[in-house]
């Protein structure tokens, strides 16, 4: 029995002295569980849909709708001043949809019972089709939620009802019963509106501020182009959902989205292998032998970096080639994609050098080092697309170089972003790569560490 316990104690001691084993046995499972818990909405951190909101209408309904959208727990709303910036946000993946409350809402409100509905537009990222239905439903719900306020508006409502009453005789396609019912409803609405309206001082010469009075109606703000056009079906809200227009390509299939994500794992494997290889060279003494050769330090470190860069490029090009050849993906901007690949390769070559400098032993490189890479890859969108993540995880993901790689590659692969939109991720990747290389090279470049 003593021997058995001694063997068990020894094995446990060995396990706890290997940082890699400790990490993968105890820490990594916890991180995985927490990560996926948050991703699937645990802990109250349910994923929210990013909306870019443009309010062009100055109607109270638009203001109410904007406020309700912002307060809705399903959405993370960012206000934009123009359609262009909102659509650009969708194009670069910062928002799932651009929601536009157009100036024509005013006409829609004025012609509430006679027009084709209060217009609300949404322009959705074509890669987020799954969320289109939810966005449409939510926009309808929130629009209808404005109606009590609208009906209680003692100024606008009588005018709207008067217009409806005017238009009723010319409406086509209504059965006599429907026409009668509509008339009754309008009258009821007018009565309701009057009961809510504050008692205005009667106008001189008038006994009532009846909105039906043509004189009063004419004095009201011009309902402009809200012609009481005849319509066959009444629809008070008209939510239009469009997919983001792409200049050249759009994702033909999910593979267009998943292959750029796949590069995360290719790059993760690359950085892990090269960092561990460098640590092995240092710990086994071959690096010292290389330092002894009559070559400059930059040549030695550059050679190491070049090998990592080459493998990273091959991995990415290979993945893109498989996506195109085997799965029919089309590359929107081949030249920019190569630039994105190159920036990613620079980034991860530099980070491999930094990781090699941080890990003292092979065990550390293979354990803690690779573990850190796995976590960064997960956070950066390697396992779960970024848009499925809760907002705080998405914010954290900015700290992962993998996120920037995915953003840069997607931009050229299928999002067809303008060059200006791709500059930021490419510069971030280059910055991380060069910074990591310089920091790492200081330690790795030292011939002997004692």
């Amino acid at each position, binding site marked *: 029995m003593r021997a058995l316990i001694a063997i068990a104690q020894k094995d446990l001691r060995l396990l706890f002295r290997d940082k890699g084993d400790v990490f993968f046995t105890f820490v990594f499972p916890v991180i995985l569980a927490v990560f996926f818990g948050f991703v699937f909405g645990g802990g109250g951190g349910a994923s929210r849909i990013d909306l870019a909101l443009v309010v062009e209408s100055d109607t109270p309904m638009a203001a109410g709708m904007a406020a309700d959208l912002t307060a809705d727990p399903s959405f993370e709303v960012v206000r934009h001043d123009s359609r262009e910036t909102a659509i650009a946000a969708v194009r670069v993946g910062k928002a799932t949809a651009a929601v536009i409350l157009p100036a024509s809402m005013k006409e829609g409100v004025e012609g509430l019972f006679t027009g084709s509905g209060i217009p609300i537009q949404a322009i959705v990222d074509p890669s987020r089709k799954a969320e289109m239905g939810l966005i449409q439903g939510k926009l309808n719900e929130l629009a209808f939620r404005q109606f009590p306020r609208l009906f209680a508006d003692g100024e606008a409502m009588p005018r709207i009802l008067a217009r409806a009453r005017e238009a009723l005789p010319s409406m086509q396609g209504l059965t006599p019963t429907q026409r009668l019912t509509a008339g009754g409803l309008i009258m009821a609405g007018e009565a309701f509106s009057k009961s809510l309206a504050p008692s205005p001082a009667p106008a001189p010469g008038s006994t009532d501020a009846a909105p039906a009075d043509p004189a009063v109606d004419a004095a009201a703000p011009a309902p402009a182009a809200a012609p009481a056009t005849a319509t066959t079906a009444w629809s008070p809200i008209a939510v239009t959902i469009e997919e983001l227009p792409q200049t050249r390509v759009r994702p033909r299939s999910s593979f267009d989205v998943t292959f750029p994500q796949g590069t995360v794992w290719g790059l993760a494997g690359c950085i892990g292998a090269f960092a561990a290889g460098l640590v092995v060279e240092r710990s086994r003494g*071959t690096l010292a032998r290389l330092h*002894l050769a*009559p*070559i400059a330090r930059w040549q030695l470190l550059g050679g190491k970096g070049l090998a990592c860069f080459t493998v990273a490029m091959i991995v990415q090009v290979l993945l893109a080639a498989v996506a195109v050849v085997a799965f029919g993906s089309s590359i929107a901007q081949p030249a920019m994609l190569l630039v994105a690949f190159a920036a990613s390769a620079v980034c991860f070559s530099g980070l491999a050098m930094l990781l090699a400098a941080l890990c003292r032993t092979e065990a550390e490189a293979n354990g803690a080092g690779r573990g850190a890479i796995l976590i960064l890859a997960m956070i950066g969108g390697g396992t779960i697309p970024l848009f499925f993540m809760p907002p705080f995880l998405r914010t954290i993901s900015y700290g992962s170089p993998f996120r920037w790689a995915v953003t840069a590659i997607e931009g050229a692969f299928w999002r067809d972003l303008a060059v200006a939109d791709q500059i930021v991720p490419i510069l971030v990747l280059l910055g991380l790569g060069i910074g990591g290389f310089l920091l790492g090279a200081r330690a790795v470049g030292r011939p002997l560490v*004692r």
Partner: protein
Amino acid sequence: MLTLHAIRKQFGPTVAVDGLSLEVGAGEVFGLLGPNGAGKSTTIAIATGLLAPDSGGVDILGLGSPTARAVRAHLGLAPQEITLYGELTARENLMFFARLYRVRDARRRVDELLASVELDVRANDRVAAFSGGMKRRLNLAAALVHDPKVVLLDEPTAGVDPQSRARILELVRELAREGRTIVYTTHYMEEAARICDRVCIVDHGRMLDLGTVSGLIARHGGQTAVTVERDGSEERVLTTDPVGEVSRQLATGGVTGVRVERPDLETVFLSLTGRSLRE
């Protein structure tokens, strides 16, 4: 020629090398001996420019410090560790180092070296599959691929079989005959006595003595012990004239056996560095 001028290196509170000065000439095999932690490997690292001394300097062939690339081209180092790539073949390893040193006609040079360390038949096998002795021989070959004038060998025979050791020692002597400067560290005293022209014994980073093996034995070895067996008992006599002593003992008669124990380099080593265990 390799010259160390009063080099000193300290790691935290530990003084690894303490004002060591040496001069090793061309065609000489110079033994650097000392217990573990004496500062031998640190001295080698400083001599090759891999480690900067806190003070003092190194000169290689009168060309200056080994930190200069042009000077390093004349240095060959076979480190204590097997510094080879296990996943590459023997030939690929040597070709890689040959390219690094821009060796002309590298293929021919590599073939020569593989033959000289008797690995030509295993040239295309991966190093990971080699025995310890084969790896050691290849490790030495990698240090020689660029035909260096100064060669530093840090325990090149550690853990090898007698055949590999014999071949390595032969090679070292050949290198010296070719006029190269050889610095050799080892824990095997008989090996040092066999191939070193001069030996320096260091401990705690300091030189304890320096000279030829016979000179060191004469200075620190003490007297020869002559043990005589007679009537089932042994008598041990210390003498500076063992031949005379044996003759005298035999003349007295009744001698059934004689054993002569001459002092050797190990006696000198233990005499200078003491018998206490090291790290």
